[in-house]
């Protein structure tokens, strides 16, 4: 009977495993392509890649934008959920949070351009009010070297994502334990440490990993709101992938494979540590 049951879940999991195989296959293939030379296998392209000046400029630029966008989205989104969660759930407020989720990232990027560009609505309104005389006097917020337009778009899109990921967690927090802690004379810090943090931590980790991987390697927003130099990772990889020379094509595969390997490794390690902690907690609860 047990065998039958296990077999049933194997059948149910088969399509998902097939999907996982597809993803692993695709990553393996991008590695294979990165070491396929004109005559035989070679790691030369990795050497060549690390001598490219464009790579270093892109890496620093991408990492800065990614970290700022991810950390700020999480900090602001988490802050909003912590202060307002009691009435966002089951209210029209939740539908308001869904609105930016409906639009693709590049549409939101277009909106930021329409609003904040030098020829945008705010600039035009300031001219109408007589505060500026030329559109050049309006500060460069989009298509700027510092990536302000890119960061603005990501924050505007990801804060709702963070809110919607955290809301279910706060709806399920075991609030009665908070009362127990209060009765026993525990402080707010205790409540946070024993109830809120253990529940929120895994979701925060997941959100942080998703946002980091996505922002670091997304193409659409930086290609629209960025500058020619430096470029973010995906723009560089895209240029190289469609570049004329074979070397550049191999650089594209190598660059994206390294990004995938590093991010996948970080994600696996963090989840393994987290799962182990959870396992220890559940074990100590059972032995009591």
């Amino acid at each position, binding site marked *: 009977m047990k065998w039958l049951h296990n077999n049933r879940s194997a059948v149910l999991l088969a399509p998902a495993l097939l999907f996982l195989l597809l993803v692993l296959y695709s990553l393996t293939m991008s590695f294979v392509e990165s070491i396929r030379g004109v005559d035989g296998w070679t790691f030369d392209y990795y050497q060549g890649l690390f001598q490219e000046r464009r790579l270093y400029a892109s890496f620093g630029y991408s990492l800065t934008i990614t970290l700022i966008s991810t950390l700020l989205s999480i900090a602001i989104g988490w802050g909003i959920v912590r202060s307002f969660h009691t009435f966002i759930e089951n209210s029209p407020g939740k539908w308001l949070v869904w609105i930016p989720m409906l*639009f693709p990232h590049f549409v939101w990027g277009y909106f930021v351009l329409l*609003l904040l560009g030098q020829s945008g609505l705010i600039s035009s309104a300031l001219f109408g009010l007589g505060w500026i005389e030329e559109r050049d006097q309006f500060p460069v917020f989009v298509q700027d070297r510092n990536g302000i337009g890119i960061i603005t778009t990501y924050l505007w899109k990801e804060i709702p994502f963070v809110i919607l990921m955290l809301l279910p967690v706060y709806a399920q927090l075991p609030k009665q334990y908070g009362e127990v802690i209060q009765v026993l004379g525990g402080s707010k810090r205790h409540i946070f440490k024993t109830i809120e943090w253990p529940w929120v931590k895994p979701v925060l980790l997941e959100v942080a990993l998703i946002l980091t991987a996505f922002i670091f390697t997304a*193409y*659409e927003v930086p290609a629209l709101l960025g500058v020619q130099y430096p470029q973010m990772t995906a723009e560089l990889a895209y240029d190289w992938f469609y570049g004329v020379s074979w070397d550049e094509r191999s650089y594209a595969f190598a660059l994206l494979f390294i990004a995938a390997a590093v*991010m996948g490794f970080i994600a696996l390690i963090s989840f393994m540590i987290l799962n182990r902690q959870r396992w220890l907690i559940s074990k100590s609860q059972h032995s009591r």
Partner: protein
Amino acid sequence: MKRSLFYSLAILFFLFPAILLGLKSVTPIWRWGEPLSFNWTLRGWTSFWMDDRILHALWLSLLIALTVTLINLAVGMMAGKALSHSSFKGKSMLETLLLLPLFVPAMAAAIGLHITMIRLGLANHWTGVVIVHLVPTIPYTIKIMKAGYDRLGSDLIDQSRMLKAGPFRTFREIELPLLLPSVRSAVFLVVTISMSQYVLTAIIGGGSVITLPIIYYPFLQSVDDTVMAAFSIVFAILPVFAVLIIELISRFFITKNSFFNRGAV
């Protein structure tokens, strides 16, 4: 006090952009430094009917998004049920692995699949685009469906099986009706993500699969903000439209005298 602070922030940052885009789609081009003109026009919207290419792209995008959604729902429901209602060795590891595609660049998967797709004849064809759109969507659906089955529990399913209902009938009368909220969120998310793909579609579609993003993206810098705003609104309407279609299909699946409709719950 707190409530009004939240609502004023949410209206300013979340609702206002949508309203502004909607307003822009029915007003003429606003030029810099000139007063805003409100001579209503339907030019932005009629461009969808006037141009065959755009209309075709609209249907193709919807076809791709709905195919991706149906595959997502099938894979997600099966995996969600197995992950929620049975336990086996290495389950938490498998759950982590199934989320992994979200933590690696989708573009790496796309260029990795490119050559294989060319060999199989799937590149430059909409089915190849469907396959690559599965990469950033399926992990979310599995997650949503697992949470759905967690909430549902196994009691009702066991009871129905005990009363000699077959697996298909149990699915139609118990699981599907009670999982509808999860199905709705999954459809919303999957269609939105599929509609957001420019670079994945461009790589695998190779310029022959013309979806809405492929048309829209190169024109984002254009001065014709009326047409661009109408486009922007369409991107947001399509997921809502897709939820309605899926709702109709599942209504068809759920029999009239299911547990749900008898007024028992």
